[in-house]
């Protein structure tokens, strides 16, 4: 989608993101040589669009008392860091909103799915049975979204996922599912293009975990890479010992390895992959893009590339500062996306909407820019404007590299 996507970005957010598009192109025009590409001139982070809709609004929101929105996703369970990064964005949005709008005080209810599909279905039922909840930010992971989507659909409760990227999610006929970012049908090919063209890798091993996210993304990447795929391996949730997978990869000696999964397994995988002196470039997706990965891979994360349909937040000055103050850490993967998704739900409540049906209708017809991108959904609940970025790990920090799709 990279060409089309870039055109759309220019069309929709031309006023705001000239730098972004320019640099993205610049990045693509520099085909790096060899397996380990370095790109000193990282693309600049986009600034916040001047017309972005923010949670505070104009401060004139009026709504009934006792209404709430919910965050449903991992808080303390598996891969919790990914969930908490989003949750803090959601918290910030609700806080800013309630401060500015005395006439509309919205409660945020938080539900912990522990990131696992089997737990999510029960938790979602609890949320659905709570009539005060009119909209949901979540669920962050594809597996749990997949398991719970039907329940939301039956209950008519709108969900905006700030991070679930499995393309199949929007193909279930759930009219309550909205995705606040690009899906893996965009991330996968973009990552493949990055691996093939930018890194110049001619042989690639694709490893995935056993989640719907990992399986789906790996499929997209494999299809886009075609003959370049020299080995495919699968690992399990919570696996920590990867000698078999590493052995196979060592034997195949690929130019690059793509790992489709989450950081919990990616960290020991990366460490064991490089422990025996294997020379290759590891590329991993948004599920790995967290400081926890960098820390847990103890040194092996250095030079790893991370693709992500998330927009760097360092250019969003006010958001960046407010988030850092609230959370005590800088915004991470999908913090800004969570903030944007919450904003949309809060706008609906500010207009005095008080039923799930009305809020669902509002989200369906929504058409306005947020911090990260322009939000307007098609009939499947997919966005049209979906940037994908590459980040890389440098000196123990995740820094943005370039925009790839």
């Amino acid at each position, binding site marked *: 989608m990279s060409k089309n996507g870039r055109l759309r970005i220019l069309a929709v957010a031309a006023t705001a993101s000239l730098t972004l598009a320019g640099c993205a192109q610049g990045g693509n025009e520099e085909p790096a040589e060899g397996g380990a590409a370095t790109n000193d001139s990282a693309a600049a982070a986009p600034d916040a669009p001047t017309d972005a809709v923010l949670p505070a609004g104009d401060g004139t929101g009026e709504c009934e008392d006792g209404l709430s929105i919910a965050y449903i996703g991992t808080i*303390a*369970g*598996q891969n*919790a860091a990914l969930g908490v990064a989003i949750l803090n964005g959601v918290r910030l949005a609700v806080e800013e909103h309630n401060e500015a709008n005395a006439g509309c005080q919205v409660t945020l209810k938080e539900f912990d799915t*522990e990131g696992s599909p089997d737990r999510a279905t029960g938790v979602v039922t609890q949320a659905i049975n709570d009539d005060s909840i009119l909209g949901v930010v979540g669920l962050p992971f594809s597996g749990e979204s997949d398991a719970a989507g039907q329940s939301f659909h039956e209950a008519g409760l709108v969900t905006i996922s700030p991070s679930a990227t499995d393309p199949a999610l929007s193909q279930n006929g759930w009219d309550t599912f909205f995705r606040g970012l690009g899906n893996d049908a965009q991330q996968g090919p973009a990552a493949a293009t990055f691996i093939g063209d930018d890194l110049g890798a001619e042989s690639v091993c694709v490893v995935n975990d056993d989640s719907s996210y990992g399986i789906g993304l790996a499929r997209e990447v494999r299809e886009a890479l075609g003959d370049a795929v020299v080995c495919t*391996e*699968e*690992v*399990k949730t919570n696996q*920590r*010992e*990867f*000698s*078999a*997978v590493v*052995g*196979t990869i*060592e*034997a195949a000696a690929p130019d690059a390895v793509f790992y489709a999964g989450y950081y*919990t397994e990616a*960290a*020991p995988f990366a*460490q*064991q992959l490089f*422990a*025996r*002196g294997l020379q290759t470039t590891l590329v991993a997706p948004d599920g790995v893009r967290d400081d*926890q990965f*960098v*820390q*847990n*891979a*103890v*040194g092996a994360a250095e030079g790893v590339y991370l693709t992500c349909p998330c927009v760097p937040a360092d250019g969003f000055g006010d958001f960046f500062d407010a988030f850092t103050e609230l959370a005590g850490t800088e915004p991470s993967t999908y913090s800004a996306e969570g903030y944007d998704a919450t904003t949309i739900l809060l706008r609906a409540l500010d207009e005095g909407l008080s039923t799930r049906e009305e809020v669902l209708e509002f989200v369906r017809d929504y058409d306005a820019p947020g911090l990260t991108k322009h939000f307007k959904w098609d009939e499947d609940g997919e966005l049209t404007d979906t940037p994908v970025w590459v980040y890389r790990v440098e000196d*123990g920090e995740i820094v943005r590299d370039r925009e790839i799709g």
Partner: protein
Amino acid sequence: MIGNLPTVLAQGGVDWISFDIGRLVDQFWYNTVNGLAYGSIYSLVAVGYTLVYGVLKLINFAHSEVFIVGAFGAYFTFQFLGYESGGIAQAPLIETIVNLVLALAVAMICSGLVALTLERVAYRPLRRKKAPRLVFLITAVGASFAIQQAIMLWRNPNPELAIQLVAPQPLFEVFGVSVTNIQLTVFLAALVLLLVADSFINRTRLGRGIRAVAQDPDTATLMGVNKERVIMLTFVIGGLLAGAAALFYIMQIPQGVVYNGGFLLGIKAFTAAVLGGIGNLRGALLGGFLLGVFENYGQSLLGGQWRDVVAFVVLIVILMFRPTGILGESLGKARV
């Protein structure tokens, strides 16, 4: 539709398991080297199971938690010594070695203490009451559960941020397979500890006491062996070795410091003990290395996802067809 059943069975019956003999042969030495390095951990933990079983005829199900407490002990020693998660420490070699030895000592003490406490709190009261053996097992399961959960509540469900003192580096090659500095260290250190334990049991006075009680508790008591002290000693030895294993484990897998990180490893170590012949110290040693290697062969042959299944199948097959294991059950002599 039932009409689909053949398709599904074909899907489930043929595709899901395949035998890649080529890969088994190709990666034979790779698997052997890795298996021995990892198996040394199984061996060390298996000694704990085997000693306790030899003396008390008790499966100390909570031994996996004895192990993981050692891992936490080593981890917090690293932290206390000023190491930080994330990067690889750049301390000079001598300092690193001193720190590793310190962590080893702390891990061993932590595990030893937990093992001793377990014996005191959970098992001794039952022994006093001459409770049947299954009651011991249920207690052990409960203790395992409780320790795991206590750690989880104290920390959190996610692994501690990894700390690594020594960066893994390939040192040399055997049969075309590179061996890392960590693998070599772990293997040699484990071997030394196992040999020390073996000569302790076989050569010293206290060791003779252990063997005597294992052989015949009543006669041993009559001959002046302090049975309670012997039992405590076996728990402590098992705990100390499990603590050492824990340090070696987190040197290889620094992401493994997590509340339930001992569970699977514990079952596998138990499998190793049964494989070698439970109650037999050298059996535990042999079983650990064999299981480590088999597990790797299995996953080369069948695919990585079958790793744990291999261990469980070994366990079940051995228990059902040769419960005395390879070397037979003998701490003192073969059990009737």
